[in-house]
C-alpha cells in the first residue's frame, strides 16, 4: 500500500508540490565562518521553496569553494547575497512572511499593504497561465499598472487567504518570474567568475551589485534595469577585452552613485558614457 501511495505522490508531484529530495548537506571544504551563513541559507531556501531549490543553491556555491581569488569574506558575501536573490520577494513570499509573523493564527499585527505591479502579480503564476494574461495586459498597456494588495492576519478570512497565497509556492518554480530570476542569478555568478579571471581586484564590487536588485514593484524593476545597464556597459565589455578599464570596481561605484529612480536612466547612462569615454580615450571614443 505504501508503495502505491508513494507512486501516486510521484505521479502527482508537480501538482501537489511534493518534493521527495533530502535536505542538502553542507559542502566540504567551506571557508572559515561560512558554515553558519550557508546553513541558515539552506533552511531559508527550503522554507521558501523546497529542498531541491536549496540543493541548487549549494551546487552554485560549490563553484567558488577553493577557487583562487575567493577568500572567506568574499565567499560569505556571495553565499549571503545569493540566498537573498534566490528567495526573491513575490506575492507568495510576502504571504509566507506574514504567516510566519503571525504564527499562522489570527493576530493583531498591522496589515501589510504592498504596491505591486500587475506584471509582478501575474508573473508569479505558472507560465502557461501567465503568458496569455501578460500578452493581453501588454496589448492594453496595463503591464506596469500598480495595484495595492493587502496582506492581513487580522481575521480568519485573512489567514485563509494568506495560506492560499502561500500554497502557490508549489507552482512558483513553473512561473515566469522564477525562470527570469534563475537567468539573473546565473548571469551574476557568471560575471563574478569572469571577474575572478580577468580582474580579481574588482570582484567584490561585482558581487555587491546584487544589492541593487531588491524588494518588489517599481524599485525592483528600476534596480534590475540599472544592474543590466552597468553590467552591459562596463563589466561585460571589460571582460570581453573591448573596454580597457583598469579599475572596474571604481567604475561600478561611480556608476552606482548615478543610479536614480528614473525609468529613463538618464543620469546613469550619462555616467556610464563618461566612464567609457575616459577609458577609451579620444581615439577610442571617436571610433
Amino acid at each position: 500500500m505504501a508503495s502505491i501511495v508513494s507512486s501516486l505522490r510521484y505521479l502527482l508531484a508537480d501538482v501537489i508540490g511534493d518534493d521527495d529530495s533530502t535536505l542538502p548537506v553542507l559542502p566540504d571544504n567551506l571557508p572559515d565562518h561560512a558554515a553558519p551563513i550557508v546553513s541558515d541559507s539552506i533552511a531559508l531556501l527550503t522554507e521558501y521553496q523546497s529542498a531541491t531549490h536549496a540543493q541548487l543553491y549549494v551546487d552554485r556555491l560549490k563553484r567558488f569553494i577553493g577557487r583562487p581569488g575567493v577568500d572567506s569574506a568574499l565567499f560569505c558575501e556571495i553565499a549571503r547575497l545569493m540566498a537573498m536573490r534566490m528567495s526573491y520577494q513575490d506575492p507568495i513570499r510576502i504571504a509566507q512572511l506574514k504567516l510566519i509573523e503571525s504564527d499562522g493564527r489570527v493576530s493583531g499585527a498591522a496589515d501589510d499593504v504592498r504596491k505591486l505591479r500587475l506584471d509582478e502579480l501575474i508573473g508569479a503564476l505558472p507560465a502557461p497561465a501567465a503568458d496569455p494574461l501578460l500578452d493581453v495586459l501588454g496589448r492594453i498597456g496595463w503591464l506596469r499598472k500598480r495595484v495595492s494588495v493587502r496582506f492581513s492576519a487580522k481575521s480568519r478570512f485573512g489567514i485563509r487567504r494568506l495560506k492560499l497565497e502561500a500554497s502557490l509556492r508549489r507552482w512558483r518554480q513553473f512561473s515566469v518570474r522564477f525562470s527570469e530570476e534563475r537567468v539573473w542569478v546565473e548571469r551574476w555568478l557568471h560575471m563574478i567568475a569572469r571577474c575572478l579571471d580577468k580582474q580579481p581586484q574588482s570582484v567584490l564590487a561585482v558581487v555587491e551589485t546584487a544589492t541593487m536588485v531588491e524588494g518588489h514593484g517599481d524599485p525592483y524593476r528600476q534596480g534590475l534595469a540599472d544592474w543590466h545597464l552597468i553590467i552591459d556597459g562596463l563589466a561585460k565589455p571589460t571582460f570581453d577585452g573591448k573596454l580597457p578599464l583598469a579599475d572596474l570596481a571604481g567604475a561600478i561605484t561611480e556608476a552606482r552613485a548615478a543610479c536614480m529612480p528614473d525609468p529613463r536612466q538618464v543620469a546613469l547612462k550619462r555616467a556610464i558614457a563618461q566612464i567609457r569615454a575616459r577609458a577609451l580615450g579620444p581615439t577610442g571614443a571617436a571610433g
Partner: protein
Amino acid sequence: MDTSHLAEHAGAAGSFFASIFVVATLSMRTMIPLRVFAILTNILLIATAIPTHNYATMALHTVLLPLNTYRLHQMLQLVRDVKKSVSSDLSMEWLKPFMTERKCTTGEVLFYKDEKADGMFYIVSGQFRLVESGIELPVGAIVGELGMLSPTNVRTQSLECTEGGVILSVSYDQVEQLYVQNPAFGFYFLRLTSARLFQNIETLERRLEQQIVAATPSARSA
C-alpha cells in the same frame, strides 16, 4: 430470415475479444507494443460495432485508430532515424519534430558555464559563440546533448547569440520520456551520444598532436 441473433452473437464475441485486447494493451510495458495492441483493439471494436449498430463506439474508435497509427508511425520513424544517424553522420536532426522554436536576440546568453544543464539546442539560423573557447557554432549544430548524460549535469561553456537567429530547443525531460517509452530509441540514443563523445575526444587528440608538433621546433630553437 431473421439475422438479428447472428449480429447479437457477433457483437458478444467481438466484445469478449476486444476486452482481451484492452487488457493486453494496458499490460504492455513499452510504447510500440502498446500502440500495436491499441490499433488491433480499435479495429476489432469498429468491426464489432458495425453489426450491432453501436455508432458511438464506432465513431470513438474511428478517431482513435488514425491517432494510434500516427503515434506508432512517429515512434517507428524516430527509432529508424536515430539508428540511421548512428551509422552515418551522427546528426541529431531526428530530434527536430520534438523541439520547440525560439527566437534569440544579439547578445542573449542561452546558458552560462557551470549552470545546471536542462536542455539541448539546435541552431537553425543566426550566429552563436561558445564564450570561453571562442568557437563559432555553425547553423545545424546541436549544443548541450552530452550534458544530459554527464554525471555533474553542468554546462562546460557559455553560449551567446552574436547575431539574432532562431534555435530549436528540447528539454532533457522530454528526451528522457522518449528514452523510457522506447527501449530501442534509448539504445540507439546512447550509441549516438557515445559516438559523438568519442568523436570529440578524437578532435581533441588531433588538436593536441598539432600543438605538440607546433611546439617542438620552437622548443628546439630555444
